[in-house]
């Protein structure tokens, strides 16, 4: 069936002929543009333009069929594309390989889909040459960082191509990244070709081309895999800064205007030999919204301790809040040096104490007394709860710090595959 024309996608015609080497049917979709067709059955590369369809070269048979078969059509990025060619290439230095699918649309021309380690990119030719300066390339006012330099060699090829490709073809490649994009330049002795790749989620490929097989699992981080961009990171810290000021203003606006106010104070002595009895305070009244009550105990303990069982009792509701409070202070000399431990002053807070009239019952406790101990218990109401503010600050700092750590980890993984990693992302030796 040499030279028959059949219908292709709207506006195109296809040509069908038999492989000159093995007789397998071959189809040319991009009439007038396709130069060669590589036979999937015998891996021969056939001249598509010459009516004699001579064999130009022979290569190795495919070890695995392409995930998206030749001839598959899919609606992708706003246009109908047909997969007309498939190529496997590898890096000469590392033997690392990747797969490339040539897409054709009669009006849009040629595009590529590439897949490596389960990561996909959509490749568009760039007609304006980029500018390379050191480790940076610039194209259309965007800068890209050098990620890879090497030699790409064709190992397998099937389908039609718009240049005379054959297995063993080698090009010098440089890849510059600016996730989610890669700016690539391929050089031969005769020409230089620039292209721009954009990362594509595997699910988009599978949906567009109705891939029924399981998509390859993604390994590692692709050079152009999108992550948390520096711009998004700066915005996050900007938001954190704005929240810091908002938190400060909200904290001051919702805190009591006046500072703490002493509502009750009691001073007494504990004498050696005297029985210790519970003490009930005079009633004191708290007004307004619930607030923090702080109970401060001071005692002139010296190498001893004083504790008190305390109950804050609401005279109207009958509710009581029981707690224990104490101070201990020890000191001495060891090796000629003075040491001390503990404090003669301690403060204890009770949150959300509602308005009401209260009494405080106190029962002091201590070891056997050898000398008198004087103590003072002070109850204060209100005051700014700074611990709430600092807790809020800490909570607001966590997401940006987590984002910073995750971004660093991802970038380190990304650049672990490159010989041109910035110092901050280089592997620890």
């Amino acid at each position, binding site marked *: 069936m040499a030279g028959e024309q059949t219908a292709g996608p709207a506006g195109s015609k296809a040509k069908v002929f038999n492989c000159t080497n093995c007789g397998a049917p071959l189809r040319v979709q991009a009439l007038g543009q396709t130069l060669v067709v590589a036979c999937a059955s015998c891996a021969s590369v056939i001249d598509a333009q010459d009516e004699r369809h001579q064999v130009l070269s022979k290569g190795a048979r495919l070890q695995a069929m392409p995930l998206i078969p030749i001839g598959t059509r899919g609606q992708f990025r706003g246009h109908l594309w047909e997969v007309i060619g498939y190529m496997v290439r590898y890096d000469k230095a590392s033997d690392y390989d990747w797969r490339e699918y040539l897409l054709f649309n009669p009006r849009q021309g040629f595009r590529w889909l590439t897949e490596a380690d389960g990561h996909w990119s959509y490749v568009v030719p760039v007609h304006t040459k980029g500018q390379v300066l050191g480790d940076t390339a610039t194209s259309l006012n965007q800068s890209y960082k050098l990620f890879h330099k090497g030699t790409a060699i064709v190992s397998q090829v099937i389908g039609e191509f718009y240049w005379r490709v054959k297995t063993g073809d080698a090009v010098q490649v440089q890849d510059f990244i600016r996730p989610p994009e890669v700016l690539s330049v391929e050089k031969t002795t005769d020409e230089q070709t620039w292209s721009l790749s954009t990362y594509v989620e595997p699910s988009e490929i599978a949906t567009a081309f109705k891939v029924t097989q399981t998509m390859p699992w993604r390994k590692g981080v692709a050079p152009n895999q999108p992550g*948390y961009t520096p711009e*998004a990171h700066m*915005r*996050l810290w900007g*938001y*954190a800064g704005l*929240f810091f000021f*908002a*938190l400060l203003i*909200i*904290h001051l*606006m*919702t*805190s009591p205007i006046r500072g703490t106010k002493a509502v009750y104070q009691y001073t007494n002595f504990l004498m050696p030999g005297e029985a210790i009895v519970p003490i009930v305070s005079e009633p004191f009244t708290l007004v307004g*919204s*619930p*607030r*923090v009550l702080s109970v401060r105990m001071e005692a002139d303990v010296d190498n001893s*301790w004083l*504790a008190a*069982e305390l109950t804050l*009792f609401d005279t109207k509701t*009958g*509710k*009581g*809040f*029981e*707690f*224990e*409070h*104490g101070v201990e202070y020890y000191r001495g000399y060891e090796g000629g040096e003075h040491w001390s431990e503990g404090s003669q002053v301690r403060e*204890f*807070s*009770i*949150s*959300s*104490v509602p308005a009401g009239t209260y009494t405080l019952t106190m029962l002091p*406790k201590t070891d056997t007394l050898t000398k008198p101990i004087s103590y003072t218990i002070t109850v204060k109401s*209100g005051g700014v*709860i700074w*611990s*709430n*503010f600092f*807790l*809020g600050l800490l*909570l*607001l700092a966590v*997401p*940006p710090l987590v*984002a910073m750590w995750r971004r660093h980890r991802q970038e380190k993984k990304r650049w672990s595959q490159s010989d041109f990693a910035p110092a901050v992302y280089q592997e620890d030796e």
Partner: protein
Amino acid sequence: MTFNKLFLIFGLGVCGFVAYANLNGWAVVGGSDTRYNRAGGPVVRGFYHK
């Protein structure tokens, strides 16, 4: 939803939480400590009816 958008919601939540705690006199950290009774065991906390 992006991480930044989630953070905006989270930040508003933190500010609202701090405002709520302040208005209710609630010291989220350090309020109503527990002290161990010298006789052994923790002191029972919380309001109860007498």
